[in-house]
């Protein structure tokens, strides 16, 4: 199997765009009662499998696309996602087996950490602090439940696509 140079980044980016659309559609249907907050699906895949600068680019552009049309400080979400991506890259070798449990655990940790960051940094859009905590808690619970079933598939889907295209990706050193 050959290893292409740039096609993995393109595939990961395209999958991220698809996830953006899917999440937007699901959240449109769920609103106003609940929302799925799943930044980890955009971050973990590129961070594990791509080279450093490619991962930064894919995660950064995905973040900028996600936060477009949101009322938060421009590039704040991008900074948070990049920080999370760097952290995932730093520990990527522990997840070489790519078994379901470890990938799901990683997804949950990254997701919860980012939700906490959003909770701390984004402006409160609820009636009062109690409602804010309740809403964030409920949305995180729902997101965590969805991740249990969907995390492995969502994160490893680009690998399957690339394998189908004849590109084998592994968690490797940078070169």
């Amino acid at each position, binding site marked *: 199997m050959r290893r292409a140079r740039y096609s993995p980044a393109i595939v990961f980016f395209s999958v991220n765009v698809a996830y953006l659309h899917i999440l937007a559609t699901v959240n449109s249907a769920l609103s106003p009662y609940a929302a799925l907050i799943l930044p980890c699906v955009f971050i973990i895949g590129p961070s594990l499998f791509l080279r450093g600068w490619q991962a930064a680019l894919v995660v950064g552009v995905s973040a900028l696309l996600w936060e477009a049309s949101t009322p938060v400080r421009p590039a704040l979400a991008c900074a948070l996602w990049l920080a999370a*991506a760097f952290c995932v890259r730093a520990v990527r070798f522990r997840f070489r087996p790519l078994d379901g449990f470890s990938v799901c655990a990683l997804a949950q940790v990254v997701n919860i950490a980012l939700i906490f960051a959003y909770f701390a940094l984004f402006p409160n859009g609820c009636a009062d602090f109690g409602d804010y905590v309740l*809403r964030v808690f409920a949305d995180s619970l729902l997101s965590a439940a969805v991740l249990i079933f969907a995390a492995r598939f969502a994160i490893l889907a680009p690998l399957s696509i690339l394998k189908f295209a004849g590109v084998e990706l592994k968690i490797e050193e940078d070169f």
Partner: protein
Amino acid sequence: MEWRKYTALRTAAIFAGAVLLCLFAPSAIRSFVSSGFDEFRAPMDSIPSHLADLQKYWSLHSNSKRDLIEAGRDLARLNAAYELKLLENESLRRRLEGLERIMNIPSDQKFRYEVARVARRDVNAWWQRMVIRKGSVHGIREGCAVVCASGVVGRIASAGTRTSVVELVSSRRFRMAARFAGDDRPVIYYGRGGVSMHAAEGEVFDVPADMEPTLKKPATLVTSSLAGTFPDGIEIGKVRSLSLGADGIFKSGTVELSPRLDSLAEVAVLVPVSEDSK
């Protein structure tokens, strides 16, 4: 393994640089990039929305002729009723203009209705917004009012070329001047923000102490034309109870918004005619 250290450092530098750029780039650059990505993302919202419309069209294709004929007949009946209403409105409008001329009263702000399909809804703990499939090329500007058949939807927060973002009436960032139906005194409406597993609500403040709505006879909160953004009299929601503040002068209460806000497929943006003609 020097190259390991080198690549690790390089990766760290790339990420650190990117994070620092995101955090400390001048706000003008950040805003420019953000609005650029907004336009880049816009087709990602409107194309799926168009595809959804197309899908709905083809799904309707599978309906039996009989269903289609009946639906068509109902629609025709509805259209006829609306056409009559339009005629009535037109004659009322002419009469009002005549009276304004005679009595030398300045006219209210006129609006043009720009109908737009909803591309997506984005409601969570931090914001309450929706994206519609029309933008500045259709005359839509930031601050324009957005309404639907059941009342106020929100206000345009930002207008891209072909899509616009609507700050919903339930958003905590939404505030407007309002009044109660049948009363001229101004009150202030605030969106209450998101509450989990609960329909959207708002709050009304500075209500005169003599207002007394009840559960059976709620008071209807409508728009006030004082600010010039909304025309007068469009429903915002219903108020079933008010509580007197400790100062004993004003009351405040919760506004129940229309449940149809949760499932809107189409809205109308009110573009001021004077701006439009510029």
